[in-house]
């Protein structure tokens, strides 16, 4: 450290002192380390002494552990020897118990063969069945083996065996016969008695089959009875229009009751998981019965004739002859009732299907533990339901329902449009309420059928009916236009004097036009409301159903686009015939006035407002004519049209005029009055629409040309300009007092 110090350097002393300091610090540190080390010395020595003492002990531990290892391996061999013996013992023991079982079986065999004979001879089938059941639980091959093994007693065992086998056969025959007899005699108690015996004598499938057939027969009987009473229902009875829905309901309820009553019995004596088999037999009977009901339904409700008629009408199109034909023979009220009945039938069917699915799958859940085999059974259940004759018939019926529902909806909508009436008290005519009432009713009815495909189809058809029938009616009316044969005030006064107060044709036409314009606007709202409520009220079982429904509802809601286009079309008609031609002359008066004003003229102008006062009065008159007649949104749209026409035409007359400063000032005030008036007339802000005009007035109201830079510039005070620099220059030239070279020199 010292070597690195240059002794000749001027700060040598300071450096030496620094080094000294560092060395001192180092010394101190080393001292501390030394002290710490010497402090550990005695501790280390004690440790070493301890270790030295322990060394001989280690020797002992080592020899001990070797001994232990030897002992363990010895024990291990011993244990293995023992366990081999235990295993042998175990085999011996199981042989003994097997032997015991055989002895038991042999004893039981004897007991059973004796018992079954006594039981049979005393007609105690339960006891006999119990013996047979015991016999059947014995391992038959083992029994035969035993017979071989116990040679001396061979004949006894074989005798018992054959005897029991014979008895089993005998019992099977007897029970089968007795069961059949009981069924024939409708002896429910005996049926149940023998039904319980089948599983004891290994006749599960047979028993279930017979029992299902028995239940099916009961169903047949009950259905025949209810069919008979239903067909006797007098036609003036209030259930007469839904007898077939009632019949189908009774059928399904009877089946449900059979399940309720007999499922516990089946489950107790045959075990769970058997319901699917029973259901398939019952379903066949249900198919048979529902076929009878539906055939009778088709006959009594003349379904074929109705379907054929509708098909014919549709094929011919809605020409006059065919509509005469259908009005003669298809009464909408009749169809309405029929549609309600079918939707009830379908909803009952859906309930029935859901009942079956729930019952059977719950039973499978309990009865079949293996998931793979349960899945197979579940798909069998689905196939049973889907491929049933009933299912096919209900699908066909739904098809007919949809055809009728479409016919009903279309014709009702056509009728609502045809008998449309205009009520002075209402902004819309009757068809809007009527049409949406019908459409909503039809869709809701389809909803009660419980079929998502059915609802979706009706929604699709509703979309078609609205677009083809209602939209075209609205469009055709609006295409006739808004008659512009306006009376001015004096003409109106003269008319009044002549006492011709009744509404003229053109006034009526104008009114109809406005009502239809409102119809389009309100219908669009109705569509939106309808769609919203459908999404909320129609239930969907799966997410796929929901997606289907949503996309059909989206299709329906797109009718608003057609209605919007119709409304726009009508509003354009209003622009062309009610707004444009009328405000033209009003604005032209601006041209007749001088805008080169002396101070005195200006005061006069300001006091009398020769232009804007009458313009506002006229606009007011025009708006009053529409204010309460049009819907809010149509009225707002009309004001928008009015504003755009006023501003463009105003611009035009300004561009044809000349101004001095005071003329510009007057104009600025006039524009302000106009904005104020129109702002008050409507709920939305019109200021933005007046931006160009306001800016034109501002330019014309400048004191000097250069003053424009106060408004036009980068600074924050500048306004967003709607005029181009070229336009500003052009407007400035309207000022007689602005010099053209000064305008030309302007920089923007």
């Amino acid at each position: 450290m010292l070597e690195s110090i240059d002794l000749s350097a001027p700060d040598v002393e300071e450096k030496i002192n620094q080094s000294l300091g560092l060395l001192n610090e180092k010394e101190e540190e080393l001292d501390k380390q030394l002290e710490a080390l010497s402090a550990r010395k005695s501790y280390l020595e004690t440790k070493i002494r301890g270790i030295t003492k322990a060394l001989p002990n280690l020797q002992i531990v080592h020899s001990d552990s070797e001994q232990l290892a030897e002992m363990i391996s010895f024990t291990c061999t011993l244990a293995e020897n023992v366990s081999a013996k235990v295993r042998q013992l175990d085999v011996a023991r199981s042989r003994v118990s097997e032997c015991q079982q055989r002895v038991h079986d042999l004893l039981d065999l004897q007991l059973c063969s004796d018992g079954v004979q006594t039981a049979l001879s005393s007609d105690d089938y339960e006891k006999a069945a119990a013996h047979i059941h015991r016999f059947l639980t014995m391992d038959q091959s083992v029994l035969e083996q035993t017979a071989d093994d116990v040679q001396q007693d061979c004949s006894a065992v074989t005798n018992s065996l054959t005897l029991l086998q014979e008895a089993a056969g005998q019992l099977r025959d007897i029970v089968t016969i007795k069961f059949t007899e009981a069924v024939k005699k409708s002896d429910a108690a005996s049926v149940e008695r023998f039904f319980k015996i089948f599983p004891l004598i290994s006749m599960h499938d047979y028993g279930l089959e017979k029992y299902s057939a028995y239940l099916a027969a009961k169903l047949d009987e009950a259905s025949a009875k209810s069919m008979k009473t239903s067909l006797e229902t007098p036609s003036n009875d209030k259930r007469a229009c839904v007898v077939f829905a009632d019949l189908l309901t009774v059928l399904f309820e009877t089946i449900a009751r059979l399940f309720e009553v007999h499922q516990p019995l089946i489950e107790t004596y045959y075990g769970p998981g058997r319901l699917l088999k029973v259901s398939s037999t019952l379903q066949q009977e249900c198919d048979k019965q529902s076929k009878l009901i539906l055939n009778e339904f088709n006959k009594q409700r003349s379904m074929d004739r109705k379907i054929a008629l509708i098909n014919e009408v549709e094929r011919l199109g809605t020409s006059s002859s065919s509509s005469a034909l259908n009005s003669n023979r298809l009464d909408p009220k009749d169809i309405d009732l029929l549609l309600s009945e079918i939707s009830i039938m379908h909803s009952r069917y859906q309930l029935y299907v859901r009942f079956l699915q729930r019952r059977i799958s719950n039973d499978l859940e309990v009865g079949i533990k293996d998931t793979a085999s349960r899945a197979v059974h579940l798909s069998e259940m689905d196939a049973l339901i889907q491929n049933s004759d009933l299912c096919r018939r209900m699908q066909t019926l739904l098809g007919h329902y949809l055809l009728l529902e479409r016919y009903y909806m279309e014709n009702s909508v056509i009728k609502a449009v045809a008998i449309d009436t205009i009520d002075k008290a209402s902004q819309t005519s009757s068809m809007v309420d009527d049409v949406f009432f019908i459409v909503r009713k039809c869709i809701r009815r389809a909803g009660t059928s419980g079929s998502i495909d059915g609802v979706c189809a009706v929604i699709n058809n509703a979309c078609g009916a609205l677009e083809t029938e209602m939209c075209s009616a609205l469009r055709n009316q609006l295409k006739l236009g808004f008659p512009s044969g306006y009376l001015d005030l004096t003409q109106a006064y003269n008319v009044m004097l002549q006492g011709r107060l009744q509404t003229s044709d053109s006034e009526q036409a104008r009114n109809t036009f406005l009502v239809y314009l409102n119809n389009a606007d309100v219908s669009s709202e109705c569509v939106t409301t309808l769609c919203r409520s459908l999404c909320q009220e129609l239930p969907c079982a799966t997410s796929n159903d929901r997606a289907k429904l949503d996309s059909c509802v989206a299709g329906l809601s797109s009718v608003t686009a057609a209605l919007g286009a119709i409304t726009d079309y009508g509003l354009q008609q209003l622009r062309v015939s009610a707004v444009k031609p009328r405000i033209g002359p009003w604005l032209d008066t601006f041209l007749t006035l001088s805008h080169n004003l002396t101070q005195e003229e200006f005061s006069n102008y300001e006091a009398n407002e020769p232009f804007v006062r009458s313009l506002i009065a006229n606009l007011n008159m025009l708006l009053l004519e529409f204010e309460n007649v049009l819907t809010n949104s149509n009225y707002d749209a009309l004001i928008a049209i009015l504003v755009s026409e006023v501003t463009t035409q105003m611009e035009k007359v300004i561009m044809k005029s000349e101004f001095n400063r005071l003329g510009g000032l007057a104009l600025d005030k006039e524009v302000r009055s106009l904005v104020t008036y129109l702002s008050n007339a409507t709920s939305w802000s019109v200021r933005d629409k007046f931006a160009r005009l306001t800016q034109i007035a501002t330019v014309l109201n400048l004191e000097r040309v250069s003053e424009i830079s106060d408004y036009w510039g980068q600074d924050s005070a500048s306004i967003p300009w709607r005029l181009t620099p070229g336009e500003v220059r052009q407007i400035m030239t309207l000022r007689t007092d602005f010099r053209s070279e000064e305008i030309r020199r302007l920089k923007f």
Partner: protein
Amino acid sequence: MEDYKFLFKVVLVGNAGVGKTCLVRRFTQGIFPPGQGATIGVDFMIKTVEIDNEKIKLQIWDTAGQERFRSITQSYYRSAHALILVYDISCQPTFDCLPDWLREIEEYASQNVLRILVGNKVDREDREIPAQVGEDFAQRHSMYYLETSAKEAHNVENLFLQIAAELMEQMRFKELPRYEQEQAHSINGRTTAIGDSCCSRLS
């Protein structure tokens, strides 16, 4: 809300068993389903494809061919942008029924709906209808024609992509004279058929 430029509705029709469901499954899920049951009513599937960097959402309605579902399936014709009429090239009766299907289409579908005739199952050895016969039929009724195999994924992607491209082309064409188009369709009264991009485009 998903981001897509156009939404098109595509409806498949044709006799039961010609392979409509398989075509849709092949296209939407990339599989050839083993032994699924016959379609009941209508099935509904969505797939978004990309044409010229534009996302196009295809809403595919797979209908049941049996007569008893006709009232349900007919209700989807009117708003369809494209109709795919399918027959089985190894089954003459499915070809013989085509005129019946065309009659249905005439009656219920929009006039300017895009119509495509598809001969499916070309993988089969036992062809009964030569390609030329199918093509002639399609030409006579101003339809596009395509032969496919749902089983071997032949031409399936192509079928749907071509439909999407064609519909987009039509839409672009109609979009240019914006105002007049609106006028035109407001007069012929179809909002949901081709030519109404404002409601088809829901993005």
